């Protein structure tokens, strides 16, 4: 790609353009996946509840997400009279930008990564921790009671589960000995038995549940709680400003799913030796994890807020600590091989 651009431009500009081209190659599929995840969600939950779901726009309703996007584009962005204008528009930006920027370090296959940085996992964790700003600022800038309540709940919940999530990542690092996401996948080579979901099974389960809570998805969606606080922090948002929050939520969902696959399910690696590795494995695994997200939403009633906080602080943090100490202790014995 760089060679192609360097025919026309100076080498520095050619490099920049080739990077931009690659970024678009990542962002556009992510955006399309986000759009079709919403369609997939409505269809899957529809079938789980013996309904049909959207099926009018295009074949099987396949054009529904595009129709939704167009509708939102032509809707007025209502600016509440008491709100703080600058912060009101800054909030959706702060939630979409980190949700996308984290994708910079995600490896899709051998050698197929935009930024092969050493501290990849730390970078992703930092980007997901910034996402909370969008929520807090949206709630405060709207100057509406419901938005404020929703943002407080949401912020406290996100930070609580981030700790549990961070501890599970420590477990993965102990096994992989690297912060580079590509290295973490390569360390799991050798078939399904080498994936980290087996030696780190409790951490895998905790990571998945924390990821659901971290993205404010049902059954941990008290931040939105449409029946109590009418959509929470983004109640005052409409049109494209709302669409950005919506995009960010689903982009984050896909991001945490792809991280779960990279850290615990062997990324792009094939589970059996007679089928080659490849990016299609990554897509299949991510689709499965996302399906579990939707399955949870269709199955479980909403948790109460005190139950959510208790689960995060009093169950997950002690459990992850115990398992980290257990793995660390096992690594000092002759069983260390099982954990690498």
């Amino acid at each position, binding site marked *: 790609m760089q060679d192609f651009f360097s025919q026309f431009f100076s080498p520095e500009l050619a490099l920049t353009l080739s990077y931009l081209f690659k970024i678009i190659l990542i962002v556009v599929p992510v955006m399309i996946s986000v759009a079709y995840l919403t369609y997939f969600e409505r269809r899957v939950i529809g079938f789980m509840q013996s309904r049909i779901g959207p099926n009018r726009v295009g074949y099987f309703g396949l054009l529904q997400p595009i129709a939704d996007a167009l509708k939102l584009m032509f809707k007025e*962005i209502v600016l509440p009279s008491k709100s703080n204008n600058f912060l009101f528009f800054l909030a959706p930006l702060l939630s979409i*930008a980190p949700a996308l920027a984290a994708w910079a370090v995600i490896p899709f296959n051998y050698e197929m990564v935009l*930024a092969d940085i050493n501290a990849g996992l730390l970078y992703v964790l930092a980007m997901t921790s910034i996402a909370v700003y969008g929520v807090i600022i949206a709630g405060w800038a709207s100057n509406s009671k419901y938005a404020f309540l929703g943002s407080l709940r949401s912020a406290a919940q996100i930070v609580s589960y981030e700790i549990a999530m961070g501890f599970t*990542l420590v477990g993965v690092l102990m096994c992989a000995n690297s912060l580079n996401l590509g290295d973490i996948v390569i360390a799991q080579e050798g078939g399904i038995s080498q994936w980290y979901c087996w030696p780190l099974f409790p951490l895998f389960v905790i990571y998945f549940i924390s990821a659901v809570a971290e993205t404010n998805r049902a059954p941990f969606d008290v931040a939105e709680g449409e029946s109590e606080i009418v959509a929470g922090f983004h109640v005052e948002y409409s049109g494209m400003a709302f669409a950005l929050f919506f995009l960010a939520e689903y982009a984050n969902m896909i991001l945490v799913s792809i991280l779960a696959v990279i850290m615990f399910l062997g990324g792009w690696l094939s589970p059996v030796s007679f089928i080659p590795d490849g990016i299609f494995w990554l897509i299949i695994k991510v689709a499965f994890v996302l399906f579990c997200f939707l399955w949870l939403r269709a199955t479980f009633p909403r948790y109460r807020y*005190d139950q959510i906080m208790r689960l995060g602080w009093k169950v997950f943090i002690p459990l992850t600590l115990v398992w980290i100490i257990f793995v660390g202790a096992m690594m000092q014995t002759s069983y260390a091989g099982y954990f690498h």
Partner: protein
Amino acid sequence: MLDSYFPVLLFILVGLGVGIGPLVLGKILAPHKPNDQKNSPYECGFEAFEDARMKFDVRYYLVAILFILFDLEITFLFPWAVVLDSLGLQGFIVMMIFLGILVVGFIYEWKKGALDWE
């Protein structure tokens, strides 16, 4: 090393662009007809009678403080987890002392009811 961070910087800029684009598009394409009722904050049909920004239970601040402390603990664990193999038993014991001290704090906050919500 810096070369590999250049695309990250670009990606953050593109991420911001992806946010600004739709907002501008929405401003241009969508109608803009403000009126008092529409622009008032959502309040289930009646007038808002006080400022929405109110004081909150101290518990939320406590969660934020505890989050900082545990986040720091995690950043201390990260380099340790990465080099645990080469540190061996000594490294393991060092971290157990570190975690032991912090578990005392965790038990204290548990017993004091700082983690209870109702």
